[in-house]
């Protein structure tokens, strides 16, 4: 067992812990921190597996942009809220049971796969280094690249529209 494998284990355990903490933590800020730790652990796994480009962007986009935004909003809304005290909805028990069932059902379908093991960092043809990946990405997938820009424009307009509507309904 190499140190790489150990690290993948370790990060996997951390990610799992982060996920569980998200469900248990009372305050949204703690949930956000749990999520961030989970994401960072996942990024660690990707780095160990040699998928550097995903690891980099996981940190940059998810942790750097999305979660920072989230944390900012949480701080903005840091008021006493009943949902801080009673964190679970009525669906607690059925929800947990259903989640377990779902994980089980998905697991069953994958266990039967009988797939070959992957050697971390020793993967074959495609390169996940930033430069080759980017070249490949823009050569084959530039339609999607353009489409994401449309999507982002739409999202920005949507956000503006929502905020304007809210302002009007307040005033």
């Amino acid at each position, binding site marked *: 067992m190499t140190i790489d494998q150990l690290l993948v284990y370790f990060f996997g355990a951390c990610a799992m812990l982060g996920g569980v903490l998200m469900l248990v933590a009372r305050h949204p800020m703690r949930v956000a921190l749990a999520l961030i730790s989970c994401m960072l652990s996942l990024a660690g796994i990707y780095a160990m597996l040699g998928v550097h480009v995903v690891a980099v962007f996981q940190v940059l986009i998810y942790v750097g942009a999305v979660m920072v935004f989230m944390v900012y909003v949480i701080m903005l809304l840091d008021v006493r809220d009943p949902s801080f005290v009673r964190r679970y909805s009525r*669906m607690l028990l059925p929800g947990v049971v259903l989640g377990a069932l779902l994980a089980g059902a998905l697991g069953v379908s994958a266990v039967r796969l009988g797939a070959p093991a992957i050697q971390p960092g020793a993967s074959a043809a495609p390169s996940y280094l930033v430069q080759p990946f980017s070249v490949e990405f823009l050569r084959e997938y530039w339609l999607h690249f353009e489409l994401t820009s449309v999507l982002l424009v739409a999202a920005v307009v949507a956000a503006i529209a929502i905020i304007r509507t809210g302002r009007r309904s307040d005033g």
Partner: protein
Amino acid sequence: MKLLTVIVLLPLAGFLLNGLLGRRLGRTFVSIVGCGLPILAFLATLKAVLLLQAAGPDAALLEVAYRWASFGDQGFDVAFYFDRLTAVMTLIITGVGSLIHVYSTGYMKDDPGYARYFAYLNLFLFFMLTLVLGRSLLVCFVGWEGVGLASYLLIGFWFEDPAKAAAGKKAFITNRVGDAGFLLGLFLLYWALGTVNMDEINAAFAAPVAPAVSASLVGVLLFIGATGKSAQIPLHVWLPDAMAGPTPVSALIHAATMVTAGVYLVARLHGIYEHAPEASQVVAVIGVLTAFFAATIALVQTDIKKVLAYSTVSQLGLMFLALGVGAYGVAVFHVYTHAFFKACLFLGAGSVIHALGGEQDIRKMGGLWRRIPLTFGTFAVATAAIAGIPPLAGFFSKDEILWFALASQHGGSAALWVLGSAASLLTSFYMFRLLWLTFLTPSRMSHDTEHHVHESPFSMTGVLIVLAALSAIGGFFELPHFLEPLLPIPAVAGSLEHYEHTFVFVAVAVALLGLAAATFMYRRGLARGEALAARFPRLHRILGGKYYIDELYEAVLYRPLHWVSDRVFLGLGDRLLIDGSLHGLAALTRRASGRLSRVQTGQLQWYVAMAVIGVVGCLVWVWRHG
């Protein structure tokens, strides 16, 4: 020129004109369009009949209006098919239809919704013609649903009255049950034969290689459709309630034309039923039961239109009895005679109601013959016709039905004959009861009403006279023989061959017996028997004589029948089973609807949970069965 298409489109033009412009253009215009176009359609039909006659006995006119759609390699045409069967139906629809339109100009004179009424009536004719002229079951089904819609609109015509709206809804829902059967049958036929053209369906079943679908199954499914439209047990409940609409509507839709659509359908698809003895058996049994039980109910009705409504149900039952024993032509014959006398009766009833200012209860009538003699005369002729008094129209068709019910080799039996004859006897009895109580007994009208009585205008009485004349002489036209190239007449059981004339006398005797009994009971009005028997029960039993007969009648005939019809049939059957199940079904769906609404709690988490249940359920199902 596409003659058949023109026949169908003329009433549609009337609907569009009256519906869109009627309100602006005034009553004269509405009347001219509303009556003129059906009459034109009638004339066009006559021309088509002439063409058909020139072409030979089993010829047919076929006219493709246009290619409607093609599904895969198959084309669906809107095609019209005109053979002798269609000819008879079309003549009835346009002929009687036109007469009723003319009648309506008088009956609906003062109604604010005059234009709308005629628009709906024309719309009905359009759909009815589509139904009988359509070559494919699909076109037929369009008409089938369309007449239901038009009927719904016309029943609810005076929509201020919630009871009428409810009646319309009841008709609509009951018919849906039947339609589901129709559609299933249609799909099965299409699936098995790859065609829905009715002539080709008949041919396919006559072919030496049997189609890959059970004729009995299809037959029963289509018959379910027919029971809905033609008000047979157990889907008959809507028809009496449908009488809430204007009387000419009852005459046209709920007596002369639409309700016979089921009979037409079975006769048209006789190819299926000839090869489906089980389905035919079902048809015959349902038919005769309906005929008998509806007649018992009619015995105790006091609303003039309700009596006629139940009598319609009963007569339709006789038609299905004929269909069930393979005498398709005879059934159509009865459709034809029934159209005349039942239209005449309904319109006569309309004239009575018109004269009395809306009174419908026969217990509050009487003595009208002097006041409205024309109505009385025509009503009497039609009553005699429906009762089967020779030589009026009803005698011929009914006699043949009963004969084939007994003697047909295609499922005839003594039991069918007995029940059918009993229905016939009861028919004669309650129809003459109606005649006595309405017209002949001393007047029981209130003073106000009495003052009001007046004969109807000529537009109404003229129509009555025409219809009465047709009810009188219509039977001399040998319709089953005319239709024989299309609709074979079943073979008669050998042992009975020589008794046909004997049974004619039996039929006449039955009719006269009914007449005599009714005369005896109701000659002097309602009070007879009932009142006396109630006041001096012992005395009149001791005195015997005629009172004893009363008692006997009361004990043997009236009471059990009343009990059967009132308790068992109306009470248990109608109210509890049919109404109950309809209402029960409605209540059930409403309750189910409430339950389902409660699932929609507004809780986001619950919605997500439902979705997860779905995902997990699907995964597990697929995994378990993979």
